[in-house]
């Protein structure tokens, strides 16, 4: 229902504008048209550089200018009733046309700006990495802070597991390539190997995944690492032995200070390749 209302709203505006344009062509002379074309251009420039409200200022100024222009025209052209009635009807038409022009243009410009802003916000709010399925770095850090506080309150310790894999240097491109398909497989294997309610897995670069295991000992961490490897081995089309040779897996105890822990994540992120 909302969709129909939106479509109706915009289509009525467009139809009205078209209708007015037809009348405009019929009623106005070339000189009139040139004057209103200049005013439309002013509104357009104001919206383009300042936005909808600046456009409104230009619209108001235009409407006022038209009023003064009308007085001047009537003053020098005589005061016959027919002439004045014609001037007023032309003025009403042109004002309606300018208002609709401002409404349409502001609407389209606002939609475009909002659309871009929303896309940017969405990018920030994205919780999972689109390739690996694990958390994005921003989301990972936010959740880690909560987990860390809870661990401290319960006087628990935990482990970081870092998985980093090798890429391939392509000389003709002068850069190192990291496979997204390999990242997806490792990411999915990590997610299937951790306790979803307690642990965290995040992507901290193109070739690095980081896992947080809370309330875990070194033995427990090793079990998770083995589980990840087993899950990679279960992948139908993967030569697990070869792939695992290319993946460096390391476990580190989570530092006791939050700043140190965040610093650890940042260092990992800087160390990971961003090509």
């Amino acid at each position, binding site marked *: 229902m909302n969709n129909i209302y939106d479509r109706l709203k915009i289509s009525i505006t467009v139809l009205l504008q078209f209708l007015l344009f037809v009348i405009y062509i019929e009623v106005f002379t070339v000189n009139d048209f040139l004057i209103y074309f200049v005013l439309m251009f002013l509104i357009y420039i104001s919206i383009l550089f300042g936005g909808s409200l600046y456009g409104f200022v230009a619209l108001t100024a235009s409407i006022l200018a038209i009023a003064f222009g009308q007085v001047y025209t009537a003053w020098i052209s005589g005061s016959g009733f027919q002439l004045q009635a014609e001037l007023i009807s032309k003025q009403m038409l042109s004002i309606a046309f300018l208002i609709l022009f401002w409404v349409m243009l502001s609407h389209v410009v606002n939609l475009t700006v909002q659309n871009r802003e929303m896309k940017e916000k969405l990018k920030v709010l994205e919780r999972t990495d689109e390739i690996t399925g694990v958390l994005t770095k921003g989301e990972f850090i936010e959740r880690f802070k909560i987990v860390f506080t809870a661990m401290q309150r319960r006087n628990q310790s935990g482990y970081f597991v870092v998985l980093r894999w090798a890429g*391939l240097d*392509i*000389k*003709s*491109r002068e850069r190192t*390539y990291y*496979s*997204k*398909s*390999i990242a*997806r497989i490792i990411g999915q294997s990590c997610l299937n190997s951790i306790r979803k309610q307690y642990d965290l897995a995040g992507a901290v670069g193109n070739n690095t995944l980081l896992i947080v295991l809370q309330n875990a000992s070194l033995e427990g961490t090793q079990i998770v690492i083995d589980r990840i490897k087993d899950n990679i081995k279960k992948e*139908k*089309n*993967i*030569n697990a032995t*070869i*792939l695992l040779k*290319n993946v460096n897996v390391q476990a580190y105890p989570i530092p006791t200070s939050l700043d140190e822990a965040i610093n650890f994540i940042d260092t990992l992120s800087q160390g990971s390749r961003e090509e």
Partner: protein
Amino acid sequence: MLSKILLSIAISFWLLIFYYSLLTVCGLMFRVKKEDTAKVSLGEYPSVDIFVPAHNEDKVLFETLDAMANLTYPGQLKIYVLNDNSTDQTGEIADYFARVYKNIFHIKVPPGFPKGKARVLNYALSISEGDMVVVFDADNQPQPDAVFKLVSKTLENEKYAGAVGYVRTINMYKNFLTRMIGIEFLAFQLLMQCGRWQIFKLGSLTGTNMLVKRKILEELGGWDPYALAEDAELTMRITARGLLLPVVPDSVTWEQEPETFKIWLRQRTRWMLGNLYIVSKLIKDKDLRKNANIINAVQLISVYHLFVAMVLISDIWFVLGILGYISTNYKVPLLIIWFESWWVYVVQLMASIVIDREVNIGNIIVSMLMYFTYAQLWIILLIRAHLTNFKNRLQKRDSGSFIVWDKTVRF
């Protein structure tokens, strides 16, 4: 006499414009139809072999194979990287993926003659055994479900010899030329391909993102190693058998297009030479002139020859008309004819950018300019291709002597 010639030119010009307009409208109708998604639940999934011919492709192959590894297909899927004596890092990249993935194979194609893609594909056919054969060029990045959709469509009807997917331009917004190529692909390769399928049930293999049943390929004796446009040639033989090649717009692959005029000219000259080879084959072999191949022949001739001839005539007509050199017994509204032919061309391009969600101010402006720029380039192209063909004939070179890996330079 001149009047009659001009009148017949005008009529054939407008018939061609009408044909393309009809294809545009029918293509749009085909695209807006909603496919029944229930059709894609299959009981059994045939085995699929993907062939990726590669000759010095290290600039693009990593991303290509990465995309191949991400393909989702429930049945057996094997990917063959057909390395034809590459001297760059192509082999290294193929090895990297072949080591990690059990279903990716680095095949070193033995040297042979004639050189080129068709021979490499025939070699792959001889060493593989999947029920379905899919071909992707080495610069392609198919969407994960591309192969699945091709297979699903092929299995819908016994008369389907395979299926043809969509090829989109990955570097469309790189520069003015790539934007024009991108729009040309959207209109003449994609939308009109859909139109041909809608009207004549006629699809054309596009060389990449295409599927053919192995059984059919074996019965036909594989690809013609002497054909430069091996895809169009295979299409003719399949169609001559009364088999169909449905178009699957949902199966999408992204391909890199030439970024400089020189490389574009070289690529298209090759395509046009391939086209001339097929036309000569059509003339010689009456078995090929069967079923819907008549339309295919008209299509081949109209795309590369009639269209360009018409552009040239319209230019000459316009200039002579303006200068007052043409005077006929007929009162021909020259300006209107010229303007409307430009406008119809623009509408066809615009229809394609709208339906493929590429509509923006830049593309609209480029569409309006393409008649004066891109379409005119085809005149150079046609002359160049005919000269090359003439030179080859003069030197009595058979096709095999100039069939080489004349591949498009990657960026």
